[in-house]
Structures are given as C-alpha cells and as structure tokens.
C-alpha cells in the first residue's frame, strides 16, 4: 500500500444501501438508470463510481459491477438520486438493464478518487469514449462554475454508441463529435481532433474516460501539446473497495518508482503521464521489471 495516496483515498466516506430503481430508459445503445440512493448522492464527486450487486440472495454472480456516476441529485421527491449509464455486455449488465422501476439494487459507493479540479480557471477539454462520457457532464458543470472554459469531445464506434451529445452542447463551451464509421461528426478518432482543440483553447487539462487505448492516446496528445491528462480507467475489479488487489495497474508514484496500485481506491482517475502504458498489451498488464517488488530473474 503506498501510504499517502491510500490514506487520502480512504478518508472519503462510503456507504452501502439498497437502492430503488425509479427510472430507466434506453438512450442509443445504452440504458440510463436512476436510483434512489441518498447516501451515495450526498457523498459523491465527479469521477467516482458505484458498485452494484447482481441477482438476488442466491445469485451465482458474486462480484459487483462498477459504473461511473453520471449525475447525482442530492435531494428530490424521492430523496437523493444517482444516475448511471449502462452498456449491456454480459450477464451482469444484462441483469441490471432488465430491472424495472421499483426493483431494488444493492449499491456500494461512492468509490474511488474523483477528478482533481484545477485551482485556477484554466481551459479544459473533456474526452469521452462511448459511455465513458457519462461522468463528464457533471464534471463540466463544476469546471464552468470555477470559471473554466470547457470543451468536450465525444467519440464512439458509431452514432448509437455516443452518449450525451445534446447534453454536451448544453453544458459545454464547445463540442466535437467523432465516430469510427462517420455516422456522426468527424469520421475518425478523438485523437485526430484533440490536438487542435487543445491548441485553440490553450487547454491546461485534458480529462478522459473511455477504453484504455483511447486514454493512452489522450495522454500522448496532451503531453505533446502541453496539457496535463487526467484519465479514468476501467480495470476488472473483484471488490471495488481496495481489499482484493485484483484491479492493480503499474503507475509511477511521486517518488518516481513504479508500483502495482489499486485502480479502485488510488484510481480510477490517474494522471495520464503516471500510467505505465508500455506494460499494457491486449487486456493484460505486465509487471514492469523496474516495478517495486517485481519478480527478480529466476523468479520469486
């Protein structure tokens, strides 16, 4: 455990509650779900996530599923609500999108570190890949409240996998859309349009949320254009609360040394230039040889 960072993460309060689904609707390829979860709603910050239990008391699916918090409303008719945007890819997410209003889901959250906010009103670019845009609108609002100029880039494979284009136009100072197939906006990747936007706005920070490959290229582009990248990663997580050590990835600490750190408590948001992108390969992450405690030649 890398003392300082962990302690900071652990100071954040967390709760577990049985949340009622009060609304669920299809948005393109995704399901937008609103949960009554006053405890989470009160504590959460943009960039944090929640972990949902799947199935009932005798479910064979033991591990929780993690979702970025799209938005919270700390109070309302039903008490505080939390919204998430879910892409149904496997049995767990299918179960979640099949819930109807009044069904309940067990929620743990808010989890992880939030996006750090700049202390000065610098320009920011927010880049979301697919449902990765979900946490960015809330972030955009907070940044603009601090006087930041905020532009957003939304990218996806195709139009139906974009999330929140209309909301982006409402909440940001500029929006650029890219799709791999050209079905909406520019044909291509977010990294094609990002350099110009950073240069044009003279952005100080680029926030990113989406697939690993995209986060790596955001980091590269940001660096090349003089901005800091803050990226929210998505690793397989067994516990989401920092106790199992399954969600680790190699990250360089403030002392310059690489450690396998837990993305659930020390992330999911990391400074892009701290992530050891060189260690990732097709869903696997190697332990870099210079990592603290790495197996020596001849093996542990």
């Amino acid at each position, binding site marked *: *455990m890398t*003392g300082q960072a*962990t*302690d900071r993460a*652990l100071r954040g*309060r*967390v709760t*577990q509650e049985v949340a009622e689904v009060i609304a669920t609707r299809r948005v393109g390829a995704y399901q937008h779900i609103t949960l009554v979860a006053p405890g989470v709603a009160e504590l959460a910050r943009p960039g944090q996530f929640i972990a949902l*239990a799947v199935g009932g008391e005798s479910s*064979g*699916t*033991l*591990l*929780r599923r993690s979702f970025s918090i799209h938005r919270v409303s700390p109070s309302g008719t039903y008490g505080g609500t939390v919204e998430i945007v879910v892409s149904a890819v496997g049995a767990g997410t299918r179960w979640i999108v099949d819930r109807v209003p009044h069904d309940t889901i*067990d929620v*743990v959250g808010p989890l992880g570190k939030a996006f750090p906010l700049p202390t000065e009103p610098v320009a920011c670019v927010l880049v979301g890949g697919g449902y990765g845009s979900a946490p960015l609108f809330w972030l955009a609002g907070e940044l603009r409240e601090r006087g930041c100029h905020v532009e957003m880039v939304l990218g996806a494979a195709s139009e139906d996998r974009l999330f929140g284009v209309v909301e982006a136009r409402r909440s940001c100072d500029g929006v650029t859309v890219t799709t791999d197939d050209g079905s909406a906006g520019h044909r291509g990747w977010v990294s094609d349009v990002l350099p110009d936007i950073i240069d044009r706005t003279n952005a100080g920070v680029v926030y990113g949320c989406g697939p690993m490959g995209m986060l790596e290229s955001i980091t590269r582009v940001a660096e090349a254009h003089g901005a800091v990248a803050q990226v929210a990663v998505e*690793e*397989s997580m*067994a*516990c*989401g*609360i*920092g*106790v*199992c*050590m*399954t969600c*680790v*990835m190699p990250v360089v600490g403030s002392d310059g040394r690489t*450690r*396998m750190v837990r993305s659930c*408590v020390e992330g999911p948001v990391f400074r892009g230039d701290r992530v050891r992108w060189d*260690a990732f390969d*097709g*869903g*696997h*992450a*190697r*332990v870099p040889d210079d*990592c*603290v*405690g*790495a*197996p020596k030649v001849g*093996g*542990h």
Partner: protein
Amino acid sequence: MVDLSVDLGGGHRLPNPLMTASGCAANGKELHRFFDVSDLGAFVTKSVMADPRSGRGTPRMAETASGMLNSIGLQGPGIEAFVDEDLPWLQSVGARVMPSIAGSSSTEYAHVAATLRASRAFDAVVGVEVNISCPNVANRGLVFACDPMASAKVIALVREQLPRDIPVFAKLSPDVTDITAIAAACVKAGAEGLTMINTLLGMVIDTDLMRPQLGGVTGGLSGPGIRPVAVRAIWQVRQAMFEGRIPTVPIIGVGGVRTGRDALEMVAAGASAIQVGTVVFNDPSAPVRVLRELCELLEAKGYDRFTDAVAVAHGR
C-alpha cells in the same frame, strides 16, 4: 444472549468467532469504513512475505459460477512495512490481529515470524496464521501444503520464533489426496490450530481470446461454490481428532461462507472460528452480518454458548 466467546489457545479469549480471511480484507483500513474491525473476533491480514512484492500481472481475477479465481501472487509491502504501518494501525483501533505470514523457503517464514515478534505492536497479535500454500523454491515450486514434510518444517521453524502464548495456525490447502495427513504433520510440528481451507487450484479460459484468462494462467478458486469442500475437509480432520489420529486442536473454518447458516454449518462440522473471504467482495460488511446471523441462529436453537455447537454434527 449467547456467549460467543472462544479461546483458540494461548489464553487469548476472543469475544466472538468471526474473522476476516487472509487476502480478502487487506490490512483493515478499507473495511473499517464499513464496520469497526475491532468488532470481529480477530482480523486476519493479507499474507506477508519478507520483501515487498509486486504480485503478478493482470488480469488477476475471473468470475466463476458462485465464486471467483484469483492470482494475486502475494502482492504486499513486505514484513518491515507491515510491522511499521499496518500492525500499529490495527492496534490503534483496538483490533485483535492474526497476521498471516508466507515465504518461498522455510527460512523466509522464520524470518518473517521473527520480525513480527520483535515489532512494537506485537501486543495486538492473538495468533499467527501460516499460509503454507506457497511455492517452495527448494522443491521445484511444489507448494509446501502439498507435502507433509515441507509443511512440518515450516511450522516447526515458525513455532520456534514465536512466544508460547501465540498459537500458530497452519492454513491447509484442499488440493491434496489426504488432508488429514498434512493436518497431522502440522500439528505434530507444533501447530496449535488449523485453518481450512485455502483456495482450490482452478483455471478459466477466455473464449474470446482463446487463452487463459488470468495473467498467472491458473488461480485459486474461492466462494460459496467451494463450501462443500471446506465443510468436508473440516469434518474429516475433526473426525481424525475424535479418532485420536491427530491431537485435538482448534480448527478455523473458511471457504464460501455467505450467511450465518453457512458459518453454523462449518461450526457443526468442527470449526471453532469462522473466516469470511470472497463474500466480502459481494457485501463489504459480511463478516459482522454473518456474526449477527450466526448469533440469531444459535439463540433460536437454544444454545447458551457458541462453543457448545462446535462439532455437534459428529456422531448424529
């Protein structure tokens, strides 16, 4: 009110029999956000080795039916950092601690035990769990727990390093032809207790990529799906104790406990204490919930003392 207290040796009376399972609760701070870790009978920490270890590459987990596979590779800060930071923190919140120790050689185990013993927060320790499911570098990587001789050697060396009033628990692997033989070897070598069971060796293939899903190829299977194997192991070893083939020592049951009923099942089979592991990932406050449920069940069944329920299923 049921008297939940239990004495696992060394005169440390624990207020109740519920514990975390090593590696499923880190070293306390994380779960302390969900419940007071001093409410547990004891807190079992992540197995610690001599030096800092990065653990294995990722993916380190695969979900399975009613369980999961893990291949963490004993990531940890090393015993020095453990005794400087983690143990004092646990002591500061009033937890009773059962450190879990590991090694790649019997001398590494001994060194870790000695460092622990010499540490300033050692007062918080109520027992030491020896995770013998580690590859033995001297024996082509065969895990200690698969070999009675290698297991006995580790236990004997660890036993020597620790004061008499600190009971040593050998944590056994179910991946053996006869678990009572390993249990007997450990008790004869000085273990004052046994923890059963560690994970089963398992594997998942990622059928999208058509390759092993875990970075470490094989991993440890845990969760409710393996509970019947744990109950059987506890039963067999306890039976061997009744038959005089193994000296009687307390057994700590672990493996797939999800509810108070599951805990009671292990108790009836012969466990004097219960650890909750993987189920914490489903429900972070599971250890205290299971304790509450167990207590309610014992009460409903008319038990005055938890210890009266231990091993009652034998000979019925």
